[in-house]
């Protein structure tokens, strides 16, 4: 195992990684920006190095500073956490060339999975369903109708160069198809400088279900079951849980097997997550694979008892996984709420400022991952995630009850947070029944 690891991240995930390191007897080196001098991860680390100014580009994203810090501190490995440089293949390469182990998959794996069409190809090869659609660009209505013949309505027209909803149009019939195509093309042209669009089956209000993978050094790949991350607002996850309350045992088995197959096909090593969309009839489609630890890895840890960060560290140091597939037992249910410094009343605008009083929830079946403390000033430069509250129960109902209790007793004074809004989700009947889709948050906001 490593002796010293540098954590190239901040906030709750840096704290989380340090906890795993300390339990494995690894010394930790924190890096921090000028704005983060008082952040908890700096305090918890064995050593800490200021690497740059407050904006991420000048600190947490500034590769030379991080590499230099790693060299000065003489660490053997860097854990990138999530966000920042976690899925930057170039950074992983530089680490390699400096003989510092990047705690994650190979640069090649990151590149492969980072490219959507390469990833789709891989999924296809592995025999995993992907959202059906045109093979490449669709030029006109005739081409589009040919695709529809195969996949059926509704479909979505998407800009090839797109993202963020621009250049996207949904069509439910031939008439709408023509308009959708021309509108999407002109929007794409305006937004991205290219009118190229493609056509895909439109999955209406799907569920977002993902599978946690651990891939060892000898090609041994296990899954830790699925997480349901359907509660999202504009592609931001708010609440995650494991197991998913909405898929059958059969679908669960299938997607877990599929996820392993994709990782196998990709020659993947390290922890990773394979994401699927699941429609109302149990059809599932591969979307992408995340080549890092997820924010919501905690719910999987709660139901399996496997420490995912420790497994990442074991794999990166050349050791084997501490567990085999047949040793993985899932017990009970876990739910995570992301407590963000955002004002739900003002379009979830990120908030900064001083937290005058912070009282985390405690007691049985509650886990809190956070860098908060009373008197901490939330800087305006980074992610608004303040804390993750995870509730465990023998079953989903118990987990919900515990989460409600935990949110009720949690105190964050000084900055608006998403706690009141999360309470509404947790108390919602549709959530209680597990019977909700990706439009739940929209509906609550109406």
């Amino acid at each position, binding site marked *: 195992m490593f002796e010293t690891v540098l954590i190239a991240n901040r906030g709750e995930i840096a704290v989380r990684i340090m906890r795993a390191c300390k339990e494995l007897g690894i010394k930790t080196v924190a890096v921090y920006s*000028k704005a983060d001098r008082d952040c908890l991860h700096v305090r918890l680390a064995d050593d800490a190095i*200021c690497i740059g100014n407050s904006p991420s580009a000048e600190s947490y994203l500034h590769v030379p500073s991080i590499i230099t810090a790693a060299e000065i501190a003489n660490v053997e490995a860097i854990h990138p956490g999530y966000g920042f440089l976690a899925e930057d293949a170039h950074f992983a390469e530089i680490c390699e060339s400096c003989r510092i182990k990047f705690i994650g998959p190979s640069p090649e794996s990151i590149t492969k999975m980072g490219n959507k069409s390469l990833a789709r190809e891989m999924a296809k090869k592995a025999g995993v369903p992907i959202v059906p659609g045109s093979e490449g660009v669709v030029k006109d209505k005739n081409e589009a109708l040919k695709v529809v013949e195969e996949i059926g309505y509704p479909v979505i027209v998407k800009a090839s160069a797109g993202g963020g909803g621009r250049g996207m149009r949904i069509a439910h019939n031939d008439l709408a198809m023509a308009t959708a195509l021309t509108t999407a093309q002109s929007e794409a042209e305006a937004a991205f400088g290219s009118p190229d669009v493609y056509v895909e089956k439109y999955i209406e209000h799907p569920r977002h279900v993902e599978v946690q993978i651990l891939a060892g050094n000898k090609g041994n790949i296990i899954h830790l079951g699925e997480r349901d991350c359907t509660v999202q607002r504009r592609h931001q996850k708010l609440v995650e849980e494991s197991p998913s309350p909405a898929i059958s045992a059969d679908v669960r088995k299938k997607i877990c097997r599929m996820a392993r197959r994709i990782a196998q096909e990709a020659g993947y090593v390290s922890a990773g997550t394979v994401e699927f969309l699941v429609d109302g009839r149990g059809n599932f489609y591969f979307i992408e694979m995340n080549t890092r630890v997820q924010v919501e890895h905690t719910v999987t840890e709660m139901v399996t008892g496997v420490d995912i960060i420790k497994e990442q560290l074991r794999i990166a140091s050349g050791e084997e996984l501490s567990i085999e597939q047949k040793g993985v037992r899932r017990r009970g249910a876990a739910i995570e709420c992301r407590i963000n410094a955002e004002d739900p009343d003002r379009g979830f605008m990120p908030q900064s400022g*001083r937290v005058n009083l912070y009282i985390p929830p405690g007691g049985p079946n509650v886990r809190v991952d956070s860098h908060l403390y009373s*008197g901490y000033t939330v800087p305006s430069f980074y992610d608004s995630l303040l804390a993750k509250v995870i509730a465990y129960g023998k079953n989903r109902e118990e987990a919900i009850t515990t989460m409600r209790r935990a949110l009720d007793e949690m105190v964050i004074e000084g900055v608006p947070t998403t706690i009141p809004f999360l309470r509404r989700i947790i108390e919602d009947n549709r959530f209680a029944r597990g019977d909700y889709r990706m439009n739940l948050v929209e509906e609550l906001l109406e």
Partner: protein
Amino acid sequence: MDLEEIQKIVNLMEENNLVEFELEKEGFRIALKKAQPMVVTPAATMPTIMAQNLPLPESAGEEPKTAEDTEVIVSPMVGTFYAASSPDSPPYVTVGQKVEENDIVCIIEAMKVMNEIPAEMNGTITEILVSNGEPVEYDQPLFRIKKD
């Protein structure tokens, strides 16, 4: 003073939450510094707990007290401080030396790149705060300079 004594002092520091310990034998000097307790007040902030193993200064944020017309040149990056352009060359600056704005005062090496650090003003170097070859953090004070 041998290793055993140093070990004892380190233990002493550990046990008593000391963050600084200085000792000079000629003429004798001693300086102890405890970790400051964090105070929850709007003004107070958490002290940076710094490297005990790394040869880094306690906190780059605590700038040395400066007289009215004395400024501090800080490191613009994390790296290794070099006082001279090569081991055989004389240092760029020495205490008492006058420098002009944009005169090179030192080199910070980061990822094998030698970055020349210029003075930001005209003045006289009054103190050099780091030694040759020492690692430095971002924003760490390097020189004290008295403005002209």
